[in-house]
């Protein structure tokens, strides 16, 4: 075991503890960057929603609430499977680790499938700005801002999901090869941090985009 641990230690570090702390801190700082990245969008959203509350509520009504709700449940469940994967990695249960990672990937794919279905129906209803956008005349202009924000925010989130799925696939490969041990599981832990972050972004996106009509009308 110790010889394997030695193999996982990169040359610039003194020991595995230092390496793990470095990996973890690096991901936290990266997530701080991500918060500011999405933060710009949340700011733009907040400004326009406070300027055009009626148009935003009317446009929000056109989204498919049940699909958003389903996706919220799917993503929260995937956060659970990621936590279980990290736990399995810590306690050296390789089979459970691989199963939990695969479950995470399946849930992520379900999320993206539902999202694609939503995009398709929004396209069919002419709710994509710049592509023959149609909406009730009162809110025709400002609803375009809502849908522009809807597509860029959920689209950027989906891009992060796709990156997350790629990372999780690498983790499955590493885990099944036996690279992950109770001494060296930073890749799983750090990937898990990223996955949770992408989930949390959705936890904010869902009420902001789907549920605002619920209390305005």
């Amino acid at each position, binding site marked *: 075991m110790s010889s394997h641990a030695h193999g996982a230690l*990169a*040359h*610039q570090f*003194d020991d595995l503890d*230092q390496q793990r*702390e*470095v990996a973890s*801190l*690096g991901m936290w*700082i*990266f997530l*701080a*960057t*991500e918060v*500011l*990245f*999405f*933060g*710009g*969008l949340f*700011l*733009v959203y907040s*400004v*326009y929603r406070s*300027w*055009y509350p009626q148009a935003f509520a009317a446009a929000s009504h056109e989204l498919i609430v049940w699909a958003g709700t389903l996706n919220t449940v799917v993503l929260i469940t995937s956060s659970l499977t990621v936590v279980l994967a990290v736990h399995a990695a810590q306690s050296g249960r390789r089979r459970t680790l691989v199963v939990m990672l695969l479950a995470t990937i399946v849930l992520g794919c379900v999320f993206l499938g539902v999202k694609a279905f939503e995009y398709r129906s929004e396209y069919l209803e002419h709710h994509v*700005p*710049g*592509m023959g956008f149609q909406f009730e005349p009162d809110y025709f*202009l*400002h609803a*375009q*801002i809502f849908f*522009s*924000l809807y*597509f*860029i925010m959920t689209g950027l989130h989906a891009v992060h999901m796709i990156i997350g799925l790629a990372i999780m696939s690498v983790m499955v490969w590493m885990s099944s090869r036996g690279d992950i041990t109770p001494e060296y599981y930073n890749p799983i832990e750090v990937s898990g941090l990223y996955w949770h972050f992408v989930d949390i972004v959705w936890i904010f996106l869902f009420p902001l985009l789907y549920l605002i009509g619920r209390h305005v009308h």
Partner: protein
Amino acid sequence: MPSMPHTGAMPAHHYLNDGYGIRSWLFTRDHKRIALLYLAGVTFFFFVGGAFAVLIRLELATPAGDLVSDETYNKLFTMHGVMMVFFFLIPAIPAVLGNFLVPIMIGAKDLAFPKLNLASWYIYIIGGLFTLYALVNGGVDTGWTFYTPFSTVSSTTNVIPTALGIFITGFSSILTGLNFIVTMHKMRAPGMTWFRMPLFLWSTYATSLINVLGTPVIAITIALVAVERIFHFGFFDPRVGGDPVLFQHLFWFYSHPAVYIMVLPAMGVVSELVAAGCRKEVFGYKFVAFASLAIAILGFLVWGHHMFVAGESVYSALIFSILSFLVAIPSAVKVFNWTATMYKGSVSFQTPMLYAYGFIGLFTIGGLTGLFLASIAVDVHVTDTYFIVAHFHYIMVGGTIMGYLGGLHFWWPKISGRLYNETLAKLSAGIIFIGFNLTFFPQFVLGYLGMPRRYHAYPPDFQVLNVLSSAGASILGVGYLIPMIYLMWSLRYGRAAGRNPWGAVGLEWTTPSPPPTENFEQTPTVTWEPYDYPSIADAEHRLV
């Protein structure tokens, strides 16, 4: 600084001869080699950006718009700004000197993430290629600020490739900043406490914070501009109720702190130069260290002073004005502390110190004119005039480039293991100082008299000052070319520098020049305080 007494032979094994051929460079994970890759990159973009400056100054030598058309002129100043800001000034000191020095100064073998460090360089180069593509494909004319709705609706030039280039390069800054922060937190050698770190590292740390927290905001903003252009979405489009001023808020939320990304590392360099050049501990070490953090934090709160005339409420303009004045305090703390360090110091006049003096003087002028601009009434008078152009060139060229060149000369013996020609170096430092002031001081006057920026023609009354400025630019250009020549020359013909040609303190001077790939023969243990100059005589024998 003594006249370079500690020279010796080149070490047998060092990072430069640890592997030969192009592959050993393009696939290296050694932070020192990556620093040199960046040196090649930023030097290239510096001269590309400089070529545009030459054309701008040539056009402005005569009042009539006779050399280039107005549309070409728009592209010239845009490409000059984009190349210089995003591909030279922002990466220059952190990615070249920072990459080389951060691990060595804390006694580490490498940065925390060596592969990510190499990836950052490739990201920088890919971003640069997109921007170069925009250039050869006809250029872009929005100004480096990409103001909407011109950039999203009206401009017919290469906005998207340029925006993509800046977006991509931004991730290089973010990842380099992340790497530095983690390295400084987790990789310090035994005994290297936070308050034993050289001040260059404090300012690099502050810079990295801005990189990590500010750059993502410009990334998303520039992405929104590209998406609005490609898909005709409406984020900032007034025709659907969008607000162009919102774009300006987002843009300056990054781009004002970006000024501190450019100048903070230069301040860090100057702290090192002044200590070594005066053989004294930096006066008020903790004040200088915390001033860096204060500048980084306050720098995030002043962006609104770019929009005093763009439709901002009186109250927010007032608050942004006050906050902008506050940034002057930590900046002045640094200038006063450097001056106090020199007081009764053994003041040297070797090349690095000449650049440090240049920095302190020019940064002071740039900073004080910044206070004019923070005053709303004066700002309204000089907004979009050459006064602004002169002000930010005093900070960016007089500050950042002076600091960069001073640092490059100070650490060149460490980087290359060779000494350069001191006479030529002093001469070019003098030429740069004269050329710089002749170029940009007349622009303060021009702006105050009312000459607007970004026009290729101007009334004949302004010609004398413009000719002075263009003449200065040609002197400045010569001043920048000379170091290229003697530094390259020194690589082959320079005398071996030895470990510590300046007799300076700091871990980087305890290891051979050039350092071995792992930086130190064995991990050092630090038992002394920073800038411990009075008892430096035996600095080389201190390693435990």
